[in-house]
């Protein structure tokens, strides 16, 4: 059974964080601060016994949504059906209202870089992804959401923008969008794309969930500085501005803060929560007649 995750705050999106076992105690101690937790299904499938138990113990205590990192939907080989079945089982057990994965690939048979890599954005590649999205959807009893990634490089033969590519796949399959605003913000900084143009491509309502995070700047010796998706710092104000822009067209059910480093700075996460809620309230005020 799916749980409506934005009930707590009525018409406003639920705000929460991505569950990480490393800060399980802290999350439990602050559960009242969150409307929702995002669970990485791979932790339930491949995680150790303790991690699985800790996650499943949260069922019924707080609404949960489901996210994946291991599908590599963009690798040009058939999907791993056994893995899909495991995902479906976990999603059902969590009572998650949706399952999300990245529009990317991480490896090929025999090699896996454990990093999200972009695809050539061509019609032919979109068609192969569309077929796979349909396979994923046929295995799930909940909506499937695709997430935009942050990327360092692009394939030279791409025929369309990332937003056009995503939108083509979503509109053909009925898949919805997990809009990673931090990734959009980073791509804007690193590649000069216009984030507002990106947002304007998608029809109203397609964004079901949102990711926010804070990255770090890298200074490669032979290249200009790059901002990387490190999930290590507070959500930047520019990303919150983009969130407000997105909220003009979409009413996501959940907004999730991703944090994978500098866990000692707990106060930053709570501060991010407060800043997001303040922006949500502001957007709601502006939208009211």
């Amino acid at each position, binding site marked *: 059974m799916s749980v409506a995750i934005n009930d707590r705050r009525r018409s406003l999106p639920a705000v929460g964080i991505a569950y990480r076992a490393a800060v399980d105690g802290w999350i439990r101690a602050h559960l009242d601060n969150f409307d929702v937790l995002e669970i990485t299904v791979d932790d339930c499938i*491949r*995680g*150790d*016994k*303790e991690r*699985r138990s800790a996650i499943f113990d949260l069922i019924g205590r707080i609404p949960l949504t489901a996210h994946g990192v*291991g599908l590599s939907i*963009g*690798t*040009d*080989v*058939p999907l791993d059906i056994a893995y899909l079945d495991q995902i479906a089982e976990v999603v059902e057990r969590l009572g998650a209202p949706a399952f999300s994965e990245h529009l990317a*690939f*991480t*490896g*090929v048979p*025999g*090699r*896996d*870089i*454990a*990093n999200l*890599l972009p695809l*050539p954005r061509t019609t*032919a*590649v979109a068609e*192969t992804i569309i077929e796979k999205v349909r396979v994923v959807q046929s295995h799930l009893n909940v909506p499937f959401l695709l997430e935009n990634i942050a990327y*360092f*490089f*692009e*394939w*030279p*033969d791409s025929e369309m923008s990332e937003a056009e590519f995503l939108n083509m796949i979503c509109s053909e399959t009925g898949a919805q969008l997990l809009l990673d605003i931090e990734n959009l913000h980073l791509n804007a900084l690193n590649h000069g794309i216009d984030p507002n143009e990106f947002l304007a491509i998608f029809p109203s309502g397609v964004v079901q969930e949102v990711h926010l995070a804070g990255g770090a700047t*890298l200074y*490669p*010796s*032979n*290249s200009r500085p*790059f901002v*990387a998706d490190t999930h290590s710092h507070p959500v930047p104000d520019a990303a919150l501005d983009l969130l407000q822009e997105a909220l003009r067209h979409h009413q996501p059910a959940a907004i999730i803060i991703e944090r994978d480093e500098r866990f000692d700075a707990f106060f930053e996460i709570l501060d991010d929560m407060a800043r997001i809620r303040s922006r949500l309230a502001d957007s709601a005020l502006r939208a009211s007649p």
Partner: protein
Amino acid sequence: MNGDLLDRQTRLLTYLTSVSAIFDGPGDIRLDDALRGIDPRLLHLQASISHQKRVKKISVIFPRTTALLTDRVAETLRDFADVCPSMPAGFIENGRQFCDFLSLRRQAGTLRPPYLHEVAACELAMAQARAFVADEKAETSAKSLSNSKRRAPGVVLLRCVYDIQPIMENAQNAEVVERDTPLAIVRPIGAEHAAIFELAPAVFNLLASLTDWAPVAPSFAMLASRALTHDLVECGLMEVRR
């Protein structure tokens, strides 16, 4: 699917996991034709960041091993990246690759200190024991034999040529002696970390043979006194069905 995309993806992964992409940067490297048009500096950045993430996973599993490598860590990890390209993303799989790499170096006689691969194997075993999840479906369907015993699932057996236990107890400067040391690594129920037990060689061999539920064999009955069986069960090394 079309073979062309997979071929390009494979060539990209081959490049990104190569030592030249990770460490040397674009320089004068001639990119594979399939990657022409991609900024080589950005590929180097991608390769370098991905490698750093992999190294981070290794340092989590192998803190003692990497400490023993001292100033040779960077060189060793470079060689590791060269010999063992990044495989499926799991922590344990990645750790096993590193362990196998050190064993190869041991065989080639280039490992210092010579017990380093055994420390690595023990650290990997601790990670495996910690990550072990019983296959509940298999457990349910397993044949239930009365008066039978088996090695507890999740136990990792490791026979070392050196007594590396002082190292595992975080005594980095302890003297490590060459001595046959049969070890069993398991995460006791309710414990946060895996525990290491040194076994008598005969007990080690018996546990090694008890891969599945089996009636108590006469040889076992002779050796495994009630007290020994009790101790093995208490330590989480053996399961018994009466």
